[in-house]
C-alpha cells in the first residue's frame, strides 16, 4: 500500500519534472508592437526614450526660434547634433532618442541637419579617397560643406532614492539648442520621468 502510493507520487514528480524541463528548453518568443509599454526592471527603456523624443520634437518645433530664424535668414536652419551626456545611473544609449529627434526634425522639413563630428571624419576620408581615385565628373571637392547654424546637445540626469527593495527613480533629460555664431541658447527642452519600483523580499 505504502509502496504503491510512493510509486504514484514519484511518477507524478517525474512527469512534472519532465514537463518543466521541456518548457525550460524552449524559449518563449512573442512579437510586440514597438509602441507597447513593457516595464521589466524599472531601468531606462525604449518607452522612456520614445516618450522623451516625441515630447522634445513637439516642443522644439513649436517655439519661436524657428520662425525668427526663417524670417531673418530666409531659409531653414541647419543643425548639428553634439554630445548628449549620460549622467544617470543607467547605461543609456542616448543615440536612440537623438536619432529619433533628428529623423522627426528632418522629416518635418523645418530643419536640416549636417553630419555629426564622427560621421564627418568618415565622409572626409571618403572625399580624400575620391580625390585620388574618382573621375573628375563625379569627384566631390573639399571645402563645400554646409556649416551648421545651431548645435543640439544635452544631458540625462537621474536621482535615485532607495531602501531595502524599494526605489524611486527620477530621470531628467535636458536638451539645449545653441546658436553657433553667438553662443546663445535659443531653445531649452526638459522632460522628466518618475518611476517607483518595489521588489518583493520573498521568492520561491
Amino acid at each position, binding site marked *: 500500500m505504502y509502496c504503491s502510493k510512493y510509486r504514484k507520487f514519484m511518477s507524478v514528480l517525474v512527469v512534472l519534472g519532465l514537463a518543466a524541463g521541456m518548457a525550460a528548453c524552449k524559449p518563449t518568443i512573442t512579437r510586440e508592437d514597438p509602441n507597447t509599454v513593457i516595464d521589466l526592471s524599472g531601468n531606462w527603456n525604449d518607452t522612456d526614450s520614445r516618450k522623451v523624443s516625441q515630447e522634445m520634437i513637439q516642443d522644439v518645433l513649436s517655439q519661436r526660434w524657428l520662425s525668427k530664424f526663417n524670417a531673418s535668414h530666409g531659409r531653414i536652419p541647419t543643425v548639428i547634433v553634439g554630445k548628449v551626456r549620460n549622467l544617470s545611473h543607467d547605461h543609456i544609449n542616448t543615440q536612440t532618442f537623438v536619432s529619433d529627434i533628428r529623423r522627426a526634425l528632418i522629416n518635418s522639413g523645418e530643419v536640416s541637419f549636417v553630419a555629426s563630428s564622427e560621421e564627418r571624419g568618415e565622409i572626409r576620408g571618403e572625399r580624400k579617397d575620391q580625390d585620388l581615385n574618382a573621375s573628375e565628373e563625379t569627384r566631390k571637392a573639399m571645402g563645400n560643406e554646409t556649416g551648421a547654424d545651431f548645435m543640439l546637445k544635452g544631458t540625462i540626469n537621474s536621482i*535615485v532614492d532607495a531602501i531595502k527593495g524599494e526605489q524611486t527613480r527620477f530621470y531628467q533629460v535636458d536638451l539645449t539648442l545653441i546658436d553657433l555664431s553667438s553662443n546663445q541658447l535659443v531653445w531649452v527642452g526638459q522632460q522628466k520621468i518618475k518611476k517607483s519600483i518595489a521588489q518583493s*523580499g520573498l*521568492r520561491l
Partner: protein
Amino acid sequence: MDIYSGLNRATILSCVSVLLSMSLTGCVGLGTKNESIHGALTAGRVGHALAIAEQQDLAHEDVLASLNKGMLRRMTGDYEQSNRFFEIAKLQIKALYGVSVSEQAGALIVNDTMRGYAGDRYEQVLLHAYMAMNYIQLEDFDSARVEMLQADIKMQEWGEQPEEDPFVRYLSGMIYEALGEKDQALVSYRKAKEAYKLTGGKQGLGIPATLKKDLLRLLTEQGLENELKLLQKEFKLENFKPESIPEGYGELVVVVNSGLAPIRSAASIVTSTGGEIVDTVKVSVPQYLSSKQPYSVRLTTDRKMSAGLETVENIDALARAALDDDMPLIMTRAIARAVVKHKSQKEVEKRGGAMMGFLATVANMVTEQADTRSWTTLPQTIQLTRLRLPVGMNKINVEIYNASGTLVDTIEKKVQIKSGKSVFLSEHWVAPNMASNIVADK
C-alpha cells in the same frame, strides 16, 4: 532477524568511515572549480584559468562563474568582454534578491549550498568598481561614472554606514575628478575618508596618504579654508602645500591588484548524541586558513621618479571579516540542520529498520557540506599611487616585492602622459611572468 544486527560494528564503522571520507571529498568538491582556476592563476597561467572558467556555467545561471569569467577576461586585457560577463553577474544578483522559501528549506534539510549565492556585500560593490575600471581602460569615463552611481545606490539601499566601501568612494572621486566634476569629487573623497575611519579597522587600513592629499588639494582649489585647516590639523599635515598639476605635466594613477583573495575551506565535526549509528551527526562550516603576507608594489620611471603604492583595499581582510559577521547565522543553520537530520535518521530507523536508519545517517553525512563559495579571483589587495609625470611617453616599471622585501617580478609599461590630465594604469599581478604568459597563451 534485522539485517542491521547481522552486520558487525566494525564493518558498519568502516563503511561509515569510507562514506565520511567521500563526504569530505564532497566538501572539497565545492571548492574544486575555484581551486583549479586558483591553481592556474597561482602558476601565472591566466589563459588556462580562463579556459577552465569558460567551460563552466554555459547557461549563465551562476553568479560566481560570471564574476570569475569577468575578472579573468579583465586580467587578459579583454575589457569589453569582461564587462559583458560582469553585466550578466549583475542580472543574476538581481534575480536572487530576497529570501527564497525553497532555498531556506533546502539549507535546513540538505546544506547551505542550496541557497542561491548572490555574492557578499563587499563582492557586490567591488563588481561595480571593476566594471568602472574596465570602462576607464576603454576610455569611457561616463560609463565608469554610471557604475559608481550604481555602487552608490547599492550602498544607500543597504542603509548601514559600515557597509560603505572606502575604496569605491575613493575611486568615484577620482572618476569625477577626471571628468572635471570637482564638487562631486570632493563629496566622494569626504565620504571615502569617513568610510576609511569607520570601516578601515576591519581591513587594517587607515586613511591613505594619497586620499589625504587629494582632499586637501581639492579644498584648496575650491577655497574652503575652514575645512582645509581642520583637515590639515586632523591629518597632521599643517605644512603641506597642495598644488595643482603644473604646466607640462600630467598625472598617472596606478592601480595594482596583487595576489588572490583567500579560498574558503570546510571545517567539519562528526559527533554522536547516543550509542547508536543513527545518533551520529556531522556539522560542516566554512573557514579561512591563515592569510598570506601581501606583496608590496613600487613604481619607478625612466625619468628617475619613484613611488611606493599604498594599500587602499584589503580584500583578504574584508573576506575574513564578512565570514566572521556571517558565522553566527551559519552556525545557527548548521545546528538546526543537525537537529533535523538527527530526527529524520531516528524516524527512518523507526519506520524502515536499522539498515534504513544507517543509510539515512550516511546520506545525511554525505550531504552535509560547508558553503565555501566566494569570489576567489578577486585580488588579495588593491594598491594605488598618483604620480605627476612630464608630458609625453614615460616608461614605467611596476616592481613587485614579497613580504621579505625581495623583488619577485617587474611589469614594464609605456604610458602617454597628457598635459593636465589623469591617465589610469590598472594591472593585475598574481604570479611572476603572468604578463608574458598571457601573450604566449594568446
